């Protein structure tokens, strides 16, 4: 039950982050899409590849006892929080830098 709650919460956060990153990167995405039109399909292939690989790993996860599974999920969530913080920090610094550059061009 706890593991499912954590997973649902995590899925919500992931969805939120993906959307936010998507919005921030909209101009860059447009540029990349025009230069590499097939990138989306390649990324889809990567995702399918990951899915296929992870399917059988689920067999071994099912052997783990429930408390241990919850502990692993907790650890992964903490890792993801730190990754999100670091990614957010990078986006923040890049944005500040670009704004400064643009301002200096007009002043």
């Amino acid at each position: 039950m706890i593991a499912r709650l954590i997973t649902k919460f995590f899925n919500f956060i992931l969805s939120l982050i993906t959307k936010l990153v998507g919005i921030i990167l909209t101009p860059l995405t447009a540029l990349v899409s025009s230069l590499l039109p097939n990138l989306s399909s390649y990324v889809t292939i990567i995702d399918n590849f990951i899915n296929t690989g992870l399917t059988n790993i689920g067999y071994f996860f099912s052997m783990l006892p429930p408390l241990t599974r919850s502990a692993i999920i907790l650890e992964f969530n903490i890792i993801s929080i730190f990754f999100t913080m670091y990614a957010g920090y990078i986006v923040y610094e890049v944005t500040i830098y670009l704004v400064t550059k643009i301002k200096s061009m007009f002043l």
Partner: protein
Amino acid sequence: MISNSQISKILKIVKIVFFGLLIFRLLGINVKATTSLNVTSGITPGQSCSTHTANRYCSLNTCQTGDAGQVWSFGSTNDTCNVMAIQFYLNTTINGFTANTLKLEGSNFRNTNYYCTSSVSGCSVVFISSTQLNVNFQNNTASGINNAQFQINAYNDGFINNGQSWKLSKITYLYNDIGQGQTSTDEIINNQNSNNQEVIENNNANTETIVNNILSAIDTIKYGMNTCYRNYFNVQNVGYNQSSTGVVERVGSSIKVQSTNNINTDVSSGKTLKQLAPELAVGSSYRLSYTKNSNALDYIYLYGSNAVWTNGTDRIITQSDLNSTIIFYTAKNTTGYLYNFMLQSSSGAIATHFVTYGEECSNKLDTIEDTQSQINNYLQDNSDPTADDNAIQGVLGGVTIQDPLSYLLTLPLHLIQKINTLLSQNSCDAIQFGELYGSQLYLPCIDIEDYLGSSLWNTIDVLMAVGLLAVTIKKFYDSVSNIVTLGKEKEVRERLELPTPMEFLQMILGGDRS
């Protein structure tokens, strides 16, 4: 000037990009090489992707009780030739036919394993998948099946590898009424030629049939998804009982039957049927099912009714049965284990997978309704038939990456999400290795608790969880300390071997930040 360390970092980035492109290239070659609609066993392989359909018939004359089943695989694992849906039809109006089970397996099913059971009018279900899926027919009758017809219709999403795509309603011929004794029939395919666009126009007359079949099939899946299974046997009530012939004890979700001498095979549970299954109704028929180790025997005894109840058979319960003490059996002086012990109503839907005590119903109706609504909207749209097919792929729940950059940036998070989803699942699917000389090879699920006992297993669980938590807390504490301590930020980054954002920008744009 660019320093040596900056050159080194640039070289690292070039290496990463190079290997990334190499992987893309390799994957791209694979895509082009595997565009056929794979039918790996049971029927003739080689149906090409451009014909959009697999419609096959297989006689099951040779499928006898105990056969592992035959497996058909459809579709490919890449995104250029997805199978949209699979429809199954099993003609069960055969003399002597009592019950059958269709087990459907696929990595991307909304419900991974689906069991379709019918003893009267056949069975038709549809599953929607964007990846390869397997169909496994399992004969569950007491004797072999004669002249049963098993028909599979595969619905393709119409996206082919030459870059063309079109509306779903104009591509796939779905239904074929195959006569008994034929091995394979597909008139529509015979009329097709290599020009896909012309085939579409030729098939326009069948559009209504196609749409009706899809909607009908989705109705069926709604019905199927709402099926409830009920296990009346409460294994928790088994408890512990020691008698003159041995011990019956619940171990986790299993029943341990220990014969303590060289004379007796019967060991009393000390409980009546009513105590073990309180909600059984007199006059109703129930099916007994369980799996076991090699020591345990394939029947139980109702002491009081003086009746033997064999594993896998139905019995109409009497009041005397309810008051009877249940006797389990194991070989003399051995320990037997009974797993997945179930008592199900014979008149309702019968699950061949294990259902814990109580009722198990699927609650996917909202999702399916939503899917049907979207498919309806899509099919009713008669605009440009060469429009992209992203909409239908979205409907199907397949993976369509609309924003590759943000996906790549958040790839670690997606990986963690997928692993978390796997970890939070309590079910286990056996790993299939395919077929070898007619035998199915697979790695069965293992419940370690059954071997170690619940006490030892729970102790190991707690120890491992506490150990993991301790490591996690230590890591968390260290990381937070590094972040909150002034001047540590740079060290953390260097330890991770990542460039600072400014260094990264300077590498791209050149010049100083100031």
